[in-house]
């Protein structure tokens, strides 16, 4: 053992110490890296767990609620990078729920529509039967009963019609172009409190054939609302007003008016843009505005209820654009002339207002009864008899004996219907 050995030992020892130090340092670094990775992983796992809890406890319930048409906003993820898959889950969830709802709604609509169609056709048949009985029976007591039945039947028909329209059906009932006054009176026929409706003086504006039934239905719903939401001793006032490019029908009631929420709901429904979900009409179902919205959008008229009536209640305003209007004047009967086959067109019509006394719109001589009848002449049966088969005998008797008339020329008249 000498210096040489000692030196060797020292160097070896030094090398060992250095290696040990190096290893220690490396170990320390590795440990630190591992620890931080473990911590990061732990944090990530926590985030994911938290995000999952957020999904299950907050986001999914909110989504379910919003799919149920409640005004709930679905909150976003807490940490977007952890929730990539969650959004896909939510989208899938929403999609399938929407599809299921849509399917359910469609089948409900289809069922309701066909049911309402059956009710409507029965009610129409009933109306024809009632009309026939009204013509057959002369007893005022019978007439009073028939009128009540008729009134109830008209209301029933309106309900069925409104429900059918809401389910995507057409209003049904093809009609000829009718005077605006008659359209509004037709609407009053279909509501319960028709005696409370005050109508304006006759207007010479008429509604074109295709829009008659929809406008009648819409005005009937507004009149019904007005009468329903005002005290029974007040009247519902209807007024017509000529506008720049159309006609306005105003319906005023003396009720309590509408709250801001009701007005918002009404405006949304009347615009006809919102989804008219038949499952969301409330209980009892409030179909009125929804039906008007559907009709207004489909036929191109506008309805608003956001004006205050001078009587305190609501003023409903129906705007009918020029495209839906025509004149009552007889020479122009666009819809009628097209709609009726020639043999019907030749039938004489009630001479509502003899604007052209000498001639019919077709240029044919018009029947007048101003001169006393030539007693010896043969009485030609007037074509009008075709229309009153039941009153035929009485009519003939009246024609023969009662009146001082000229026999009508045996020329068929043109259609003089307004």
């Amino acid at each position: 053992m000498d210096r040489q050995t000692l030196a060797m030992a020292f160097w070896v020892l030094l090398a060992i110490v250095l290696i040990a130090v190096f290893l220690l340092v490396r170990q320390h670094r590795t440990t630190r890296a591992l620890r931080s990775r473990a911590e990061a992983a732990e944090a990530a796992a926590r985030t994911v767990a938290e995000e999952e809890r957020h999904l299950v406890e907050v986001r999914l319930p909110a989504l379910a609620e919003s799919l149920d048409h409640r005004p709930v906003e679905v909150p976003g993820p807490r940490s977007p990078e952890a929730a990539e898959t969650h959004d896909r889950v939510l989208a899938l969830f929403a999609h399938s729920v929407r599809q299921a709802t849509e399917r359910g709604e469609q089948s409900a609509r289809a069922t309701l529509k066909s049911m309402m169609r059956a009710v409507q056709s029965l009610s129409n048949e009933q109306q024809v039967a009632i009309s026939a009985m009204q013509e057959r029976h002369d007893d005022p007591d019978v007439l009073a009963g028939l009128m009540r039945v008729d009134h109830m039947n008209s209301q029933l028909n309106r309900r069925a019609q409104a429900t059918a329209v809401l389910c995507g059906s057409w209003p049904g009932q093809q009609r000829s172009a009718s005077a605006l006054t008659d359209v509004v009176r037709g609407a009053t026929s279909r509501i319960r409190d028709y005696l409370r409706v005050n109508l304006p003086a006759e207007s010479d504006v008429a509604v074109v054939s295709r829009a008659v039934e929809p406008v009648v239905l819409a005005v009937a719903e507004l009149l019904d609302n007005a009468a329903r939401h005002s005290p029974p001793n007040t009247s519902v006032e209807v007024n017509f007003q000529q506008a720049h490019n159309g006609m306005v029908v105003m319906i005023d009631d003396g009720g309590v008016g509408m709250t801001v929420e009701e007005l918002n709901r009404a405006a949304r429904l009347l615009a006809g843009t919102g989804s008219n979900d038949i499952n969301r009409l409330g209980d009892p179902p409030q179909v009125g505005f929804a039906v008007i919205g559907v009709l207004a959008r489909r036929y191109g008229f506008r309805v608003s209820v956001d004006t205050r009536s001078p009587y305190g209640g609501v003023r409903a305003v129906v705007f009918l654009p020029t495209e839906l209007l025509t004149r009552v004047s007889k020479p122009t009967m666009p819809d009628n002339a097209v709609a009726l086959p020639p043999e019907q067109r030749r039938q004489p019509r009630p001479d509502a207002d003899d604007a052209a006394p000498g001639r019919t719109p077709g240029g044919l001589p018009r029947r007048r009864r101003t001169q006393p009848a030539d007693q010896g002449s043969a009485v030609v049966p007037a074509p009008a008899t075709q229309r009153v088969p039941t009153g035929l005998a009485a009519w003939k008797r009246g024609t023969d004996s009662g009146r001082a008339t000229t026999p009508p020329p045996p020329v068929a008249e043109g259609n003089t219907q307004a």
Partner: protein
Amino acid sequence: MSADRRLQGLVRPYVVTGGRAHASRNTFDAVTVVIATREQVAGLSPEKKRLMELCRGGALSVAEIAAHLSLPISVTKVLLSDLVDSGHIATHAAVSHAARPDMKLLKDVLDGLRARL
């Protein structure tokens, strides 16, 4: 469905009479003759205006008026009663019995015709 029915279905009879089925007077039958006695029609309902225009040309029977207005006779009677009450129209009894053709004569003619044919 004829054009008449389509028009008729719109405004129902109870709206035309304001819910009344009983005429205020009982003087009408199907052949009662009606004459307009007033020109002025302001304030009348559309059916009453039409009725007045029909009657202005001369006398007309209740049955004819009902046919022209496409209304049941019973409903027409309610309107006519109102118009008599308000002085718009006057009525005449249809025809005196003396002026009516003799039923016996008619029957004889019928028998004669039957015998020939």
